[in-house]
């Protein structure tokens, strides 16, 4: 049962082969039994989950047929949940209980889903390995010596280990796609503004995007149907119509023009990954797609630009955590400055402090033009690159990461090499585009992810392409042995 997709579980529920309470209990049992090893959850909401499941069962009895009714899932601990701790992986918010729900939490609640708990993550979504959590690192279910990727490492590991059918996640520079790739699952980062950011704790507001971690593209489509849409409480959410993302999943790929950027297949790419991507391309050719070589000449600038813009926004977004109104406050402050300094020094972890300092520096008088403004110009160039490419192709495909999951501790003292592992994902955030990572193979028993990138609001097309691939392959159906 735990290996089934949302679509399959919905069928089980609607035909009364299992109740939501039973299904929920099954996943709660798995979490209790298996998560000690993985550490993918920060909070498990057993009681609430069973209540919601019972409610879903009675709604079903009353005739409700929502495809998500009674489906258990997990929320990344970055989404505010009323009455339940929302820590954002930080000591700073270890005591924080939001008096409101994030919009996407409300949407999923209204669709009838059951909240199993809140998943572990890099502190304030800053990291690519989930080693930066106040609650300790998350392990990769395929090899528990390895990282699951980050920042949505908890969501990815939990879905990969079948502790939940699906989870929400967020992606600022690759935080959905990279852990999805490293854990062998499907991770969707929609277009910037497609899902409301209201109640989602901000890291870098102009890049942050909510999305999903699922087993399949079909499940991503089902979840996106519930989460996408304009929200008047988020001025940056976009008011364009939301299609039914499941309707076009089986559309033909005949004549689909797929762009392969040469910058994504150059130096630094693991050869097994390169081979797996080439093999996947063959499958697409078999499905009728045309492969076209393209260029994204400014890809190399995306990391430096990102590491100016994201820290700049973070330095300002995280200024509110000052020990005054909520969150961590140091013991016995002697004066205001002491209160600020110690609350923030003790409340934030190392990587968060590093980025606050970088951000403060690049926004400072005398440096603003050289860093922040220049980075914005690069951002514009990168968007232009994609816009040019999408004149020739419908979607772009490449590896999600240059290498598979690395060992815990391997890069934790080398931030730059850690930052470089996001080389293929970051440009997509800078351009605000949708991207999805799907599993396409293994290297030494570790999953390989392939990234599909499309123009703004092309989620339906991306999920269609991903789904058609998943119908003729079974990489997405593999489960790590220890968790089967």
């Amino acid at each position: 049962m735990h290996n089934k997709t949302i679509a399959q579980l919905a069928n089980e529920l609607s035909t009364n082969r299992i109740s939501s309470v039973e299904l929920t209990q099954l996943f709660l049992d798995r979490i209790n039994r298996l998560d000690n090893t993985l550490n993918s959850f920060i909070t498990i909401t057993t009681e609430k989950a069973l209540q919601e499941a019972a409610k879903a069962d009675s709604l079903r009895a009353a005739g409700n047929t929502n495809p998500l009714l009674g489906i258990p899932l997990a929320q990344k601990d970055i989404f505010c949940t009323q009455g339940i701790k929302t820590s954002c992986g930080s000591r700073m918010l270890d005591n924080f209980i939001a008096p409101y729900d994030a919009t996407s939490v409300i949407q999923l609640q209204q669709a009838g889903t059951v909240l199993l708990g809140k998943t572990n993550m890099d502190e304030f979504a800053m990291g690519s390995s989930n080693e930066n959590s106040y609650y300790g690192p998350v392990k990769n279910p395929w090899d528990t010596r390895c990282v699951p990727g980050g920042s949505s490492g908890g969501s990815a590991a939990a879905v990969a280990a079948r502790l939940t059918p699906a989870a929400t996640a967020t992606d600022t520079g690759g935080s959905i796609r990279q852990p999805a790739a490293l854990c062998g699952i499907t991770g969707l980062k929609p277009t910037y503004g497609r899902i409301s950011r209201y109640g989602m704790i901000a890291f870098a507001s102009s890049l942050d995007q909510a999305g999903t971690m699922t087993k399949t593209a079909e499940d991503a489509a089902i979840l996106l149907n519930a989460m996408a849409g304009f929200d008047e409480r988020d001025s940056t959410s976009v008011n364009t119509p939301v299609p039914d993302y499941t309707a076009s999943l089986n559309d033909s790929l005949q004549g689909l023009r797929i762009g392969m950027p040469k910058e994504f297949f150059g130096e630094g790419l693991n050869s097994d990954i390169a081979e797996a991507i080439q093999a996947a391309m063959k499958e697409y050719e078999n499905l009728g797609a045309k492969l076209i070589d393209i260029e994204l000449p400014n890809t190399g600038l995306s990391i430096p630009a990102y590491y100016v813009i994201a820290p700049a926004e973070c330095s300002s977004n995280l200024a509110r955590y000052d020990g005054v109104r909520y969150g961590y406050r140091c013991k016995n402050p002697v004066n205001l400055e002491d209160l600020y300094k110690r609350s923030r020094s003790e409340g934030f972890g190392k990587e968060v402090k590093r980025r606050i300092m970088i951000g403060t520096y690049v926004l400072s008088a005398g440096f603003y033009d050289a860093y922040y403004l220049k980075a914005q110009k690069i951002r514009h160039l990168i968007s232009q690159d994609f816009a040019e490419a999408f004149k020739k192709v419908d979607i772009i495909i490449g590896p999600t990461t240059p290498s598979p999951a690395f060992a815990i501790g391997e890069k934790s003292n080398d931030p730059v090499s850690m930052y470089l592992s996001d080389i293929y994902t970051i440009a997509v955030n800078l351009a605000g585009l949708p991207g999805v990572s799907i599993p396409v193979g293994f290297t030494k028993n570790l999953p390989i992810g392939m990234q599909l990138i499309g123009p703004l609001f092309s989620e339906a097309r991306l999920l269609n392409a991903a789904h058609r691939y998943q119908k003729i392959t079974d990489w997405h159906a593999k489960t790590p042995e220890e968790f089967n």
Partner: protein
Amino acid sequence: MEWEIVIGLEVHAQLVTKSKIFSGASTAFGADPNTQACAIDLGFPGILPVLNKEATTMAIKLGLGIHAEIAARSVFARKNYFYPDLPKGYQISQFELPIVGKGYLDILMEDGTTKRIGITRAHLEEDAGKSLHEDFNGKTGIDLNRAGIPLLEIVSEPDMRSAKEAIAYLKALHALVRYLDICDGNMQEGSFRCDANVSIRKKGETRYGTRTELKNINSFRFVERAINYEVERQIALIENGGKVIQETRLYDPNKNETRPMRGKEEANDYRYFPDPDLLPLVITEEQIAAVRSQLPELPQQKRQRFIDAYGLSPYDANVLVSNRATATYFETVVTTSNNQPKLSANWVMGELSAALNKANIEITDSPVTAEQLGQLILRISDNTISGKIAKSIFEALWNKEGDVDHIIEKRGLKQVTDTGAIESLVDSLIAKYPDKVAEYRAGKEKLFGFFVGQAMKESGGKINPQQLNEWLKKKLA
């Protein structure tokens, strides 16, 4: 040494929107601390600002009122600094691209001419909360009711050359925001706050001197005093070989002095950058046209009309247009008095204004209505009563004793214009004071006044002065 004073003003006008600039919390003044602050105002995690459209409309109004360009696209920026009453650790403001660009106000000078004061820009921003340092046993209390209240910061050019000009500009701006109904103008409650940038330079010098910024000047009177104090201080400093330091100084109205301010304003790098939570504010020509079509007649236009149509002096016109209610009152008086603008102006600015001041009430609450005052003036101009009698009727009106004609009737105050009655009164005076008549006829012309006085006394002031004069001259000749 002759010094020239250079003043620029920064005014923060609190906009009278019902809810805050980025949240739905109420903006009402005087509520219990922290009862009007929602999760947005408190800077909670994950919470996002949404711009109040009403604030935008009000900024457009101001822009049109100062003949400024309204930006088709303006940008909200974050001003970053730490302070306990600033919940997010930044203030949402506008920096490089404000909503209102260059404009101006024409102020009235003492000699009746006008001077154009340039306005550099006006931008929208949110207010911070308040830190309360008393009543907490050495600790600081924080009230976030004010956090997020919309402000329009209006920055002038350094175009003013005296404290008097600064006051004139400030009053003109004050009148404007109240005409536009975008700010209540209450300086005591801080809804209209002013900071003054003051510097001095030698007469004839083209470069500006080093300026200081004066804060905490919450009345027109204090603006004048603070500027004058600061000018004296700077002159004394320079003449004694010192140098003015660019700094922020706080005005202390009790001691009437300015002194350097320490704390949050000190040497901050605000690290402005565009707020990624808010899209650029786009304003269309249609929006501007819609606001323009709703604009009332503004003080400068009204002043000119009062001068042209009513023949008022620029000074009188300026006083009458200083607030909309007074101007409206005045125009009603003019109409009901059957077009007696000068007399109407004198009464509104004289008797009425004095009575209102004394009783400390607003013109909108005046016990004497504009129609009643107009009626009173009509009765003066048609010679029913004299000006002197009119004052006693005004008092009766103030005390709600009824309408003008009713009071005249009841008290028998109608002026004597009957020729026969006046002639016989004059005759009786000539009979009563033969000595004075003789002296007058012998050349002591000053005694004419004596006879006028006696006649007024005997008639209870009701006699028509012109007719009396004519009869006295005839009979005494």
